[in-house]
């Protein structure tokens, strides 16, 4: 039955059109969210970078005994803070992060000592079924990135480090490069990294501390960890919208191609069936003429 087949194809065209409408809408929503997220990360970056620079120069100069967070430990009790997205349909965004995190665990050979803090539902769902212990899970916070979550996460990080439960903490997240490009970054948060100076004399230069160093460092380091975590979350948010926009743009384009090829097929089928019918009618008419 060629006629029935045409109807099937037409139904498929319509369903692809519906999907295309959704992907196109998602693309526009992502684009407008991206603009806001981009503004936030651009204005947060200078502060975070400056903070890191100050901390690095401080860590290089200050006596490590001044504060426990400045002490470098060589242990292998590592925790990764893995930042993924809460929602799907954003291309390889979350799977890139998950891949990078698992590769890191394998390469550093820390299978036994690793633990995780997961931000975002995608990462949480995936790592739940893996053998590595999960310390904290933060799900459904990426749609509204707020400083208070960053504070909560950084507090727990600092507590673990001070208690000696962890020797190093890394952030794994997507850095927002541009709308079409995200970079997976693995960044050390604690212990604070020392800056290497070429000039040894500069290293010997220590600061005057206006307040007792322990108090000062307490506040400064707390603020620093908070800032870095918050920045990672903002980067990831902007990158996620960018990634979703690209993915949905590609999906919309694919839908268009598919509609075109299906429509072509449908028309061809319709034409064939018409041709066959005409031939049949002509054949029938000729048979009648011959009969006379």
């Amino acid at each position, binding site marked *: 039955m060629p006629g029935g087949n045409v109807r099937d194809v037409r139904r498929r065209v319509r369903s692809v059109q519906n999907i295309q409408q959704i992907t196109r809408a998602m693309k526009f929503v992502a684009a407008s969210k991206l603009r806001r997220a981009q503004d936030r990360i651009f*204005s*947060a970056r*200078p*502060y975070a970078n*400056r*903070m890191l*620079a*100050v901390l690095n*120069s*401080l860590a290089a*100069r200050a006596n490590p005994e001044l504060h426990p967070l400045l002490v470098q430990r060589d242990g292998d009790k590592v925790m990764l803070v893995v930042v993924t997205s809460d929602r799907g349909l954003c291309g390889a965004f979350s799977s890139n992060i998950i891949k990078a995190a698992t590769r890191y665990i394998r390469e550093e050979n820390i299978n036994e000592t690793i633990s995780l803090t997961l931000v975002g539902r995608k990462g949480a769902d995936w790592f739940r079924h893996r053998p590595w212990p999960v310390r904290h899970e933060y799900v459904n916070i990426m749609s509204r990135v707020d*400083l208070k979550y960053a504070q909560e996460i950084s507090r727990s990080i600092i507590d673990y480090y001070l208690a000696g439960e962890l020797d190093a903490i890394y952030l794994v997240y997507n850095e927002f490069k541009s709308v079409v490009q995200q970079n997976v970054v693995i960044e050390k948060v604690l212990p604070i990294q020392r800056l290497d100076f070429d000039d040894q004399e500069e290293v010997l*230069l*220590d*600061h*005057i*501390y*206006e*307040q007792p160093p322990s108090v*000062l460092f307490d*506040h*400064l380091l707390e*603020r620093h960890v908070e*800032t870095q975590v*918050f920045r990672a979350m903002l980067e990831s948010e902007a990158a996620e919208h960018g990634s979703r926009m690209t993915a949905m743009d590609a999906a919309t384009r694919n839908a268009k191609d598919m509609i075109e090829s299906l429509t072509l097929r449908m028309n061809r089928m319709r034409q064939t069936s018409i041709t066959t019918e005409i031939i049949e009618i002509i054949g029938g008419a000729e048979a009648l003429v011959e009969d006379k």
Partner: protein
Amino acid sequence: MAEKIELEIVTPEQLLFSGEVEEVVVPGSEGYLGILPGHAPLLSELQIGVISYRRDSQETKVFCSRGFVEVLPDRVSILAEAAELPDQINVEQARAHQMQAEQLLRSDDPDTDYAQALLDLREAQIRLDLAEQSTAT
């Protein structure tokens, strides 16, 4: 006055200033600190107050609320939790905060956080003073 020192003022919201200046005064938590080029390395917390810096003999004042300052001989980095130029100050909001804080201080509710209310009041007053000064001149 050929010598200059690099100054950078950043907050979580914005990069407020970056450039070379002749002198900076910051509200350290133990009192105001004047910084000239070649200052000894120093690290201090900041309290609520006014940062002022001089550039080409022109003085600029900036509201600042808590944070840190790192001084190196050739560079001053100010990491403030909040900082605003006089024309960025939201006068109405500051006034509202002032009223709110005053109300809290007058209340006899034992749960009132007086220390916090006092800080809020101070913050609002400094903002208002600074905004007023800049419109007066």
